[in-house]
């Protein structure tokens, strides 16, 4: 599967900004068998980065234990309407994707 769609929402709260990001990814553990009984090879996101106006604020390493079609929520200090949030990921096959949203 190629890098699927991502969706993000960044909403200003009282003194913080909530960022919720959805990504389409199989997150295969390497232990699941397909319909023919063959093991599906490991395929999962390993790195995830959250940037605010170009500056990295969260740097994550994750494993195949994160559920399929991952959903992450992060909380940023302060923030202002219009701040540019960018989230990108890289998986163990070298595939990657990223998405951007302005704080609303």
């Amino acid at each position, binding site marked *: 599967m190629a890098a699927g769609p991502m969706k993000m929402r960044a909403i200003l709260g009282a003194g*913080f900004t909530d960022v919720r990001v959805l990504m389409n990814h199989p997150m295969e553990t390497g232990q699941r068998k397909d319909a023919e009984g063959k093991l599906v090879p490991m395929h999962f996101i390993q790195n995830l980065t959250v940037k605010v106006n170009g*500056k990295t604020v969260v740097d*994550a390493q994750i494993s195949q234990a994160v559920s399929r079609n991952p959903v992450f929520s992060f909380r940023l200090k302060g923030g202002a309407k219009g701040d540019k949030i960018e989230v990108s990921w890289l998986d*163990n096959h070298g595939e990657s994707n990223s998405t951007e949203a302005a704080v609303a």
Partner: protein
Amino acid sequence: MNRLRRALVAALALTLVRPLAALAAWNKEAFGAKSPGDALKGLGIANATASNEVTIDAPQIAENGAVVPVEISSAIAGTTALIVVIEKNPFPLAARFDFKDGALPFVKVNVKMGETSDIRVLAEAGGKYYSATKEVKVTIGGCGG
């Protein structure tokens, strides 16, 4: 997707992703560890102090191990990382989040659990580690047919 776009995406992946990869290497040793102890060793963590300022919000019972929602946070001043270990998973280390200035030590994520297990969350602050655990029971849902 047409060929040109695919080629462009591939080129972009090469140029843009490299610095990302260099920036946040994936800790193969820790993530490949098959016991919680080895996973922590892989992260260079020798010991951690139990703390009720590290919080794990997760259901006591999950109807499906494929999706267990967990919300983790730390109230310890100067927290720079949160680490999630699912003790009984084949590869216990699930995630490590490093927070730079600008982010609060808070994450909500869905994880997979192979069976009923303790979830352990460690917070790093000032080079020290603090931890909390919570048991989640994994049950069967639906008609099972």
